[in-house]
C-alpha cells in the first residue's frame, strides 16, 4: 500500500511539475531485456523505438538488451532477479506469468493505471491477449509481441499441383487432401517437396494446443493448476499430427525444427506451414513466390491459442524505475506504435485502436494477410500456462516428440504427460 501511495505521488509530480526538473537532472535509467523468436532484423527496430522514446522523454533512458530466445531471456531475467538486480522491464512469454508471480519477480500493474486515458488504453487490448496477462484480479503483463498461429501457403506450388491458389484448406480433411496433392516424390520415392509442416521443437506444445482446440478440448484450466492432456480431443489432435507423417506421408517424418520452418517454406521444401504470425514480415520480405495466409483449418471448430510475449515490470526495481518502465511500455503499445510494430514484424496489433489507425488501415488494404491473425482472435483461446510452466510444457513437449518419432503411441504419450503434470501441479492446488 505504501508503495502505491508513493507511486501516485511521484507520478503526479512526474506528470506535471517535476518533468523539466528531472530532464535537467539525471535521467532515470531502465534496462529492458527482450527476446527475438522470429526472423528479420528485430533488434534494429527495437533500438530505434528506444531512441525515439528517449527523444520524447529525455528524463528516461532506456537500454534495450537482446537476450536470446524466450527461454534464454527468462533464464537471464530470473537469474538477475535472484541476484538482486533484475532488468526493470522485460518481454517474457505471457505463459510464464504464474512462474514469475510464484518467484515474486514481477509487480501487478493496476497501481500504475491511474488516469482515464490509462484505463481506456488498458481496456482496449484484445480480450484474447489479456487472458494470459491477468490472474487473481490483477494485471501482470502488458501485451506486446503477441501472435496466433496461422497457416501460410505457397500459391505457386498450389497452382502447380492443380489446386486453386486462392483457396486455403478450411478443414482438417481438406488440409490432408491438399497436402497429398502437394507432396512431390521422385521415382525412387524420395520426397523433394512436402505438403505441409507443423514444427515440433521449442513450441510443440503450442502447435498441439491449436490442434486440440480445433478438436474441441483445452489443455489446462484458467487458474494454471490443472491440465487435461489425456482428454479425447487432445489425443485426437496428436493422432492427426502423427498421421500426417506416418499414415498420409505428407509431412516430413521425425522432429521438425521450429527455427528452420520459415526457411523450409521459403525454399519451397514445404507447400504449407503452421507458424506464428510473427513471421509474416520475414516471409513477405523474402518470399520469391506468391503466398497466402489463412486461419488454421477447422475440425469441430476453428481455433488457435494466442501466443507471444508481454511486458513485465520487475518487483526489485525502484518505484521511480518501475514508473519509468511502465511509461515506456505504455508508449510502446500506443495505437500508432502498435500498428507500426505489427507492420514491421507481423505480430498482431495488440489493441483495437491499433487497427483503427490510418497506417494500419492502409497496410491491411494493400496486404490483406495482415488482418488474418486479428480476425482469428475471435476464435482464439488462452495459451497453455501453468505454475512451473517450463517444467509442465517440457513434460508435454517431450511426449509430443516421443509420439512424432514413433516411440510412443499418442494416447500413451499424453497419459504420461498428464501424469507428470499432475505430479508437478499437485502442490499448487
Amino acid at each position: 500500500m505504501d508503495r502505491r501511495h508513493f507511486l501516485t505521488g511521484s507520478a503526479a509530480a512526474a506528470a506535471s511539475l517535476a518533468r523539466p526538473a528531472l530532464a535537467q537532472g539525471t535521467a532515470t535509467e531502465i534496462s529492458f531485456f527482450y527476446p527475438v523468436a522470429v526472423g528479420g532484423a528485430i533488434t534494429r527496430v527495437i533500438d530505434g523505438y528506444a531512441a525515439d522514446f528517449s527523444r520524447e522523454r529525455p528524463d528516461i533512458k532506456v537500454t534495450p538488451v537482446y537476450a536470446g530466445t524466450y527461454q534464454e531471456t527468462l533464464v537471464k531475467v530470473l537469474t538477475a532477479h535472484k541476484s538482486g538486480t533484475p532488468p526493470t522491464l522485460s518481454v517474457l512469454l505471457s505463459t510464464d506469468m504464474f512462474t514469475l508471480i510464484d518467484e515474486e519477480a514481477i509487480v501487478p500493474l493496476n497501481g500504475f493505471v491511474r488516469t482515464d486515458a490509462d484505463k481506456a488504453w488498458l481496456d482496449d487490448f484484445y480480450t484474447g491477449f489479456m487472458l494470459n496477462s491477468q490472474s487473481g484480479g490483477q494485471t501482470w503483463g502488458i501485451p506486446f509481441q503477441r501472435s496466433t498461429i496461422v497457416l501460410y501457403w505457397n500459391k505457386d506450388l498450389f497452382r502447380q499441383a492443380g489446386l486453386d491458389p486462392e483457396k486455403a484448406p478450411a478443414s482438417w480433411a481438406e488440409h490432408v487432401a491438399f497436402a497429398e496433392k502437394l507432396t512431390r516424390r521422385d521415382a525412387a520415392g524420395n520426397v523433394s517437396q512436402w505438403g505441409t509442416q507443423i514444427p515440433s521443437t521449442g513450441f510443440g506444445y503450442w502447435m498441439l494446443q491449436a490442434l486440440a482446440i480445433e478438436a474441441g478440448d483445452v489443455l489446462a484450466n484458467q487458474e494454471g493448476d490443472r491440465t487435461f492432456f489425456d482428454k479425447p480431443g487432445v489425443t485426437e489432435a496428436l493422432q492427426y499430427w502423427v498421421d500426417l507423417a506416418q499414415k498420409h506421408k505428407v509431412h516430413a517424418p521425425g522432429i521438425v525444427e521450429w527455427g528452420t520452418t520459415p526457411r523450409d517454406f521459403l525454399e519451397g521444401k514445404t507447400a504449407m506451414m503452421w507458424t506464428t504470425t510473427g513471421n509474416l514480415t520475414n516471409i513477405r520480405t523474402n518470399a520469391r513466390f506468391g503466398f497466402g495466409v489463412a486461419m488454421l483449418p477447422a475440425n469441430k471448430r476453428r481455433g488457435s491459442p494466442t501466443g507471444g510475449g508481454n511486458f513485465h515490470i520487475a518487483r526489485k526495481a525502484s518505484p521511480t524505475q518501475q514508473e519509468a518502465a511502465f511509461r515506456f511500455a505504455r508508449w510502446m503499445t500506443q495505437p500508432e506504435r502498435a500498428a507500426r510494430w505489427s507492420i514491421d514484424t507481423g505480430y498482431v496489433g495488440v489493441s483495437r485502436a491499433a487497427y483503427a489507425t490510418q497506417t494500419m488501415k492502409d497496410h491491411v488494404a494493400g496486404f490483406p494477410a495482415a488482418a488474418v491473425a486479428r480476425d482469428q482472435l475471435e476464435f482464439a483461446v488462452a495459451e497453455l500456462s501453468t505454475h512451473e510452466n517450463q517444467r509442465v510444457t517440457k513434460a508435454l513437449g517431450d511426449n509430443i516428440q516421443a509420439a512424432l518419432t514413433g516411440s510412443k503411441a499418442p494416447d500413451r504419450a499424453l497419459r504420461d504427460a498428464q501424469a507428470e503434470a499432475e505430479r508437478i501441479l499437485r502442490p499448487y492446488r
Partner: protein
Amino acid sequence: MNSRLSAAVHGWLLLMPAMLLLVAFTHWPAVASFIESFSSTPRPRRPSRFVGVANYEQMLADPVFWQSLANNLWFALGTIPLAIGLALLMAIWVNDRIPGRTFARMAYFTPTILPMIAVANIWLFFYTPQYGLLEQVASGLGFASHNWLGSRETALAAVALVAVWKESGFFMIFYLAALQGISPTLAEAAALEGASRWTFFRRVQFPLLMPTTLFVLINAVINAFRTVDHIIVMTRGGPDNATSLLLFYIYQVGFNFWDTSYAAALTVVLLAMLAIAALVQYGWLERKVHYR
C-alpha cells in the same frame, strides 16, 4: 625457527592467489552443492528446509535422469576412442614430410579454434533435412533423405560426431608434439632392422606416446561430460530427451525449472562420476603407462 616460519609463510603467500581462486570457484561450489542437495528448493512462500536424501530418491525415480546418464555413457563411448584414434592418425600423417604439411596441420586444427556455438550452427546446416549439405550430397549419390537430428535413432550419433570433429584436432596437437620429441635415431634403427611401418608404430611410436595418450584420455573423458554447448544449439536435448546429456539436464533443472536443490543433487552425482574416472586414470592407468 624464525626462518623456517617465514619460509612457510612465504610459501603460503605464493600459493595464495591460485588457492583463493580454486577455493572460491571450484572447491566451495562443490561443497555448497553437496550441502544444498540435502535441502528443498527455496520458493518465496516456502523457504528451504532439510529433506535428507529426498532429492536422491527423486533422481532414482526420474526417467529423464536415467536416460541422460545412459546417453552420456554412449556419448563418451562413441566420442572418446574415435576422437583419440583420429587424432593419432592425423598426427602421424602430418608428422611426415608430405607436400602442404603446414596447410594440413592448420586445416586439422581449425575446428579447435572455432567456438562450439559457431561449430554447432554450421553442423545444424549440414544436418538440415532436404537442403542441408549432407542431404544434398546424399541425394546426389542417390541415397534416401534422412532427418538426422529429428529422429531418435540418429540424433545422439549426429551430435557425437560434431564433438569428435571438434576435438580430434585439439588432441592431434599433443600427439604431434610428442611425435616430434621421439628421437629420429629410433626410426633410423628400425629402418636398418627392416621393420615395417606398422611394426615401428606398434613397437616404438605407440608405447612412447603412452603418457600423451593418458593425458589426452583424461581430457577426452572430462570433455565428454562437460561439452553441452552444441546440444543447446542443435537439439535442446530432443527429440524426447534422446540427446539429453547429464550436464545439459542439470542446466535444464537448475535454470529452466529453478529446482536448484535437485540440480545440486544431480551435480553431486556428476562430480562423483568424474572423480571416480579421475581416480581410475591417475591411480591405476598411470602405473601401466610406459615412461622412458
